[in-house]
């Protein structure tokens, strides 16, 4: 096998691992949010336990990238491609961590009923999940216009985040006895908003890969 072919095969293998990592992290986010809505603690614990798989997959990607860098000594776009794979893997692993955080908060809230409608939070979470899914897809297809377009949804998520937090703060003054739940809900809201930021980061990495310049889509 020619050296370049081996390089291309190794990149493809790392991309396949990244897709797997993204599926696991997004699934963890979906499951933890379902556990939160359904108050299903078994499901929440499952997410916490499965995080080790996500972490080890990220480590595997890191090792593979370092090995390719060592053996192939890539430059220019080839080097950027490896660097952005490394960064995207780190961000997707963080999404897995936020899924764990949401699972822990839902266990903390326990069986007590929600003191407010969580419809907007649900909406926000599904949007963030869809953003992640589509941006990872665009990233692997190296489709810049799609990535940029999806990243624009981050503004909607930020707005939803602002509205929910304002609502929860207002609620804390009228229902001070529920401050623990309000805090947990605020944290969950914050975790989801961060996940959308990571999706935007991945879109930025794609632009960096293609153009060799840094962009900030997260303003």
């Amino acid at each position, binding site marked *: 096998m020619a050296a370049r072919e081996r*390089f291309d095969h190794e990149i493809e293998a790392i991309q396949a691992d990244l897709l797997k990592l993204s599926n696991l992290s997004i699934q963890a986010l979906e499951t933890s949010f379902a556990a939160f809505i359904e108050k299903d603690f078994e499901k929440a614990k499952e997410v916490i336990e499965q995080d080790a798989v996500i972490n080890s997959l990220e480590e595997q990607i890191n090792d593979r990238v370092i090995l390719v860098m060592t053996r192939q000594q890539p430059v*220019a776009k080839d080097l950027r491609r490896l660097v952005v794979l490394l960064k995207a893997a780190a961000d997707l692993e963080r999404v897995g961590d936020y899924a764990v955080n949401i699972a822990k908060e839902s266990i903390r809230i326990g069986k007590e009923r929600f003191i407010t409608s969580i419809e907007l939070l649900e909406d926000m979470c599904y949007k963030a999940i869809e953003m992640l899914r589509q941006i990872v897809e665009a990233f692997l297809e190296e489709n810049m216009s799609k990535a940029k377009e999806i990243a624009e949804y981050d503004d909607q998520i930020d707005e939803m985040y*602002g509205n929910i*937090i304002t609502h929860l703060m207002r609620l804390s003054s009228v229902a001070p006895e529920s401050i623990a739940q309000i805090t947990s809900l605020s944290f969950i809201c*914050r975790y989801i908003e961060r996940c959308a*930021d990571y999706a935007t980061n991945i879109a930025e990495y794609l632009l960096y890969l293609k153009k*060799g310049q840094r*962009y*900030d889509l997260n303003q």
Partner: protein
Amino acid sequence: MVDLMNKTNNKETVNIKTPSPSMGPSIQAADKNSVFNTKNFNLWYGDHHALKDINLDIKENDVTAIIGPSGCGKSTYIKALNRMVELVPIVKTNGEINYRGRNILDASYEVEELRTRVGMVFQKPNPFPKSIYDNIAYGPRIHGIKNKKILDEIVEKSLRGAAIWDEVKDRLNQNAYGLSGGQQQRICIARCLAIEPDVILMDEPTSALDPISTLKVEELVQELKDNYSIIIVTHNMQQAARISDKTAFFLNGEVVEFDHTDKIFSTPKDQRTEDYISGRFG
């Protein structure tokens, strides 16, 4: 009620940043003097048009790397810079190669003077079959220096300059052939320094050396650039990226791209450059 949580944005950024240089030595000031300014230079070996309309402005105290696949004309180009290429009888040239403002292709230009100012180190170490001392003293003696004390000083200074003094100071009278390949190459560099050139041309100077000797020569190049302008032909992309300030990519006798090394190895302008440095051909 106030929104206590700020929008998450962990970046203090402007919209678009240019990539920060990450590889290689620092970028030089724009106002450096030209050492070799080549204008519309063409060279033929018989009917074969080996160099086509070369335009390159090489600055002083830079390390300039010349890269490109075999047969692209890079060695021909540096051999044109000290007119060694004229030793091939079928060579024809036109255009200009200005060394410090004077066209070296002018019939009136004295080639001996040029080669005193422009030294050369070759791919394979080629010491003379003489003692280490005599190898270094050879050039100065030809230039008429007979005084033993002055020659001793030149030999020591040159060997120190080539970072080999400590390894050979106790055996200066031994034959240079007894040294390792890496040491022989540094002897050749010292021999080149002994005539106090302005420019050092290096034609794949480390291709016959092991990694440790290569590293020593590369470190030496970095030290020498303070006092000399260096033009190095190399097949080793990492070497060009590590040691040069500017890189010229030659392909089929043309200069495809000439830019700061950081730029060439991170975001080259021409797809052919990207393909070559990434190992897609050549």
